[in-house]
Structures are given as structure tokens and as C-alpha cells.
């Protein structure tokens, strides 16, 4: 059973399009995250949700909009895609009441052409 699963794994799309990446965790965690890893391999946190409430919102263009319908899901919607959005997007989760060990999904490879 995959603990943190995200779809799609690969996504190639044209500039200007709108796309979504879905994420689900079956670990019963309260907190979910989106991270972005660019071509230089820097892994940066974008958003964090705790029980469906946004608690971390790093400096991310407002074209990126996370949505959490329930604490097991955190989807990422991206409007008006740009070339610079090409990256690997990782969904993750943790149990905020504990030591906050983060469990990552396998990543979604987004290529904007």
C-alpha cells in the first residue's frame, strides 16, 4: 500500500495551460505539504496544510493554488503554466503531534513546453 500517492507521475503540457496534481495519504496524518524540486535539485517547501487549514505559504506565485478537501487529500492546481514551472513536485505528509517525520510521495514530473 502506497502511503502517499500522487497523480499524475508525469505531465507534459504547453505554456498557458492549467493543470492539477492530486495527492492522497493513507497514514492518518494531520498535515500535508507540497514541495518543489527544480533542475538544480533544490527541494523547497511551497505549502503546508494542517487539518485542511493552510499553515505555511512560502513565496509562491498565486498561479499555484492548493486545495484540501479533507485532511487525507491535498491537491495542487497551477494556472497559466510557465516554462519555469517545470520541476518535480512532491507531496508529503506528517503527524504534527509527533516528531514531524515527513513521508514523501514519489513525485510528479511536470514539463512545460
Amino acid at each position, binding site marked *: 500500500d502506497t502511503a502517499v500517492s500522487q497523480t499524475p507521475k508525469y505531465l507534459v503540457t504547453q505554456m498557458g495551460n492549467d493543470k492539477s496534481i492530486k495527492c492522497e495519504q493513507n497514514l492518518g496524518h494531520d498535515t500535508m505539504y507540497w514541495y518543489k524540486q527544480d533542475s538544480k535539485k533544490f527541494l523547497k517547501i511551497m505549502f503546508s496544510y494542517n487539518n485542511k487549514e493552510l499553515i505555511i505559504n512560502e513565496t509562491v506565485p498565486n498561479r499555484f493554488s492548493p486545495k484540501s478537501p479533507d485532511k487525507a487529500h491535498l491537491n495542487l492546481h497551477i494556472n497559466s503554466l510557465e516554462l519555469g514551472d517545470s520541476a518535480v513536485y512532491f507531496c508529503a505528509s506528517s503527524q*504534527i503531534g509527533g516528531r*514531524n517525520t515527513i513521508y514523501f510521495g514519489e513525485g510528479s514530473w511536470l514539463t512545460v513546453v
Partner: protein
Amino acid sequence: LAKTTQPISMDSYEGQEVNITCSHNNIATNDYITWYQQFPSQGPRFIIQGYKTKVTNEVASLFIPADRKSSTLSLPRVSLSDTAVYYCLVGDNPVNGGSQGNLIFGKGTKLSVKP
């Protein structure tokens, strides 16, 4: 936010013990140290976590000196499959009033294991 510094890269050979040191001079009293491993084309994976002295699990050992200003991840008898990037994170759970340091990934150490 406790900043961490680790070597950009390290090379090793199969069967050797590898020690990766992370410096965190401004670690706070409640901060703990967590190491993650990331293979190519995968998400990071938790390896080990500790607060002081020594922690050991089936994968690695973590050595933390008394002043806690650094920590060393020790991988015994590495194999080719240990080739990965290793990240050191320092922080406390935000729900405990801590910083977000345990959510911030630095550049990591790229370990290359050769046959």
C-alpha cells in the same frame, strides 16, 4: 531557524563505512536532528532522527556530541545502492512552538558509491 551545513558531495567504495557530518551551530534547545535519503527519481525517505548522544537503527547510526553543534550520519559497509543524496534537517515540531527547520531541506550531500 537552525542553519545546516554539509559537504556537497562524497565518494566512497563498496564495503566502506561512510560518515557524513552536518554542522548546525545555532541549534536550539528543543531542536532535534533528522536525516533523509533521496534516490534519483524518488521522494526523500526518513533514515534516522536523534536529539543527543547516539542513535542506531537497522540502516544507520547518528552521532551527536554533547554540544549538539554538529551531527554525523554513519552508514556501515555501504553498497552501490546507497548512492543517493543525504539531507540533514534541524528543528522542532511547529506545534511545540518550534521553528520550521525540520521542514527545510538544504542542498544535501551527494554520496557516490563506487565498486
